[in-house]
């Protein structure tokens, strides 16, 4: 029997919603031992987001990534952040056989303009990176984006800023659907139904995560029309055309960088291949809803489901 010798310390829940962060919405929640810690942690996270945006943004011509993209074939000194993301991107491109492809937007542009879509050889690296020396050499002539990886990386770094801020016990950061939780208790995450676009419609699944990240990708909110048909904004570099496999693909991973990349990969691969790709890695739970509404998930996903 527990005797109330020691009263539990009061905990303070803080929540912030912002619009216009990395072009989308930001949600931060914290549980802290005092009332000032939450707002301070949010401030720390926003500072991290701002500094990383100046590295990765493709909308800013002066971002470190865009400046680096104007070079080719030379050893260029880059920040550790950029080196890690470029290195991880190239590793996953190779591992997924181009299902994850940082130049996919360039291919998509050619496809949309009815031009010939450049063929991608898995063996040809887009770039080479030496993370320890902080050097990256760009080989490809095609403009790249870090869309399906940089946001996840920023989410991870912002989550570190939150959890290492004084007094924080639990934290969640969600940038436009890419989210990461830090803490012991965990959090329930609802997965939006791709066929229902509203905020208050029932989710297709609910999962519980702790110290994990979740990313859902799919063409249901962003896409484009061409010749009277609607297409996903996710481009399948394997087939040289927009992805037509999944309408929604969700990945749970230890980091948001991984969940971000993997949700894109499983959006492009046929469902069976996507599931075995996820199972070939450690700690990756996936849930896929294909366009014909069939659903697929691996066993690790089942262990996350909550009622």
């Amino acid at each position: 029997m527990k005797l109330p010798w020691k009263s539990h310390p009061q905990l303070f829940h803080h929540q912030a919603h912002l619009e216009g962060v990395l072009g989308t919405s930001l949600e931060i929640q914290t549980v802290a031992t005092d009332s000032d810690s939450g707002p301070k942690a949010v401030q720390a996270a926003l500072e991290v987001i701002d500094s990383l945006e100046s590295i990765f943004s493709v909308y800013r011509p002066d971002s470190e990534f865009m400046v680096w993209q104007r070079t080719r074939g030379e050893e260029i000194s880059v920040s550790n952040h950029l080196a890690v993301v470029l290195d991880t991107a190239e590793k996953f491109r190779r591992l997924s056989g181009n299902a994850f492809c940082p130049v996919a937007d360039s291919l998509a542009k050619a496809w949309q303009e009815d031009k010939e879509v450049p063929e991608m050889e898995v063996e040809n690296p887009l770039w080479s990176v030496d993370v320890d020396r902080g050097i990256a050499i760009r080989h490809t002539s095609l403009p790249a984006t870090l869309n399906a990886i940089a946001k996840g990386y920023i989410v991870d770094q912002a989550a570190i800023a939150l959890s290492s801020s004084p007094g924080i016990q639990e934290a969640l950061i969600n940038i436009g659907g890419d989210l990461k939780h830090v803490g012991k208790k965990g959090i329930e995450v609802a997965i939006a139904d791709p066929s229902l676009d509203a905020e208050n419609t029932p989710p297709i699944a609910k999962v519980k995560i702790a110290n994990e990240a979740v990313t859902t990708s799919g063409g249901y909110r962003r896409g484009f029309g061409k010749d009277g048909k609607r297409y996903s904004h996710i481009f399948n570099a394997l087939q040289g055309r927009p992805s037509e496999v999944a309408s929604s693909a969700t990945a749970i991973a230890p980091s948001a960088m991984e969940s971000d990349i993997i949700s894109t990969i499983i959006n492009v691969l046929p469902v069976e291949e996507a599931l075995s790709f996820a199972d070939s890695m450690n700690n990756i739970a996936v849930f896929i809803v294909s366009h014909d509404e069939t659903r697929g998930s691996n066993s690790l996903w089942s262990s996350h489901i909550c009622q």
Partner: protein
Amino acid sequence: MKKINQPSDISRRGLLKSIGAFSLTLPASSVLANLLAKAPKWDSKLELAIQLDIATQKEVRVHRPYIAVWIEDKDGKPVRTISLWVQTTRRGPKWIPDLRRWYRGEQDRVKANGGDLVATTSSATREAGHYTIVWDGKNDKGAYVDQGEYFVCIEAAREHGTYQLIREKAKFANKAFLQKFAGNVEISGASIELRKRS
């Protein structure tokens, strides 16, 4: 004479009364019949999609205002609270009264149905500031409302900012339509669409 007149007066009054009562029963019953005939229930194949855009500026991040979306009947009585976004911090409840109209309606609603918590939306969307909320045509007790005229209310309040209310009349029958609402400094634009349930 008086003796004769009196009963006659009384009986005349009695007659007038009974005629009055009779004549009243006719329109009363026909009004009732009309009401029953003219107010079919909400078409369950339809839903109302309410879209709103929170005013954002390029490359500037803004805190989301506190927002309440609800439906009132033609007399201004709250029928259904659809969505409510407030900060759930220690300071939150203090600011809920900022959503003045919602708060007033909530007091009525609490009295009427025992005061269950209303559903809230906390998920983020991919497009900055753009939100869609659907109303299934049911009231707070879960029953379909009658077809007819209602007010769609979207209220926004900021802690150290402004208070804004969009309150627009709309007629819901069994025909799909799209109606745009003028925006304000907090909600740059909003629209409603009666559409097939997705």
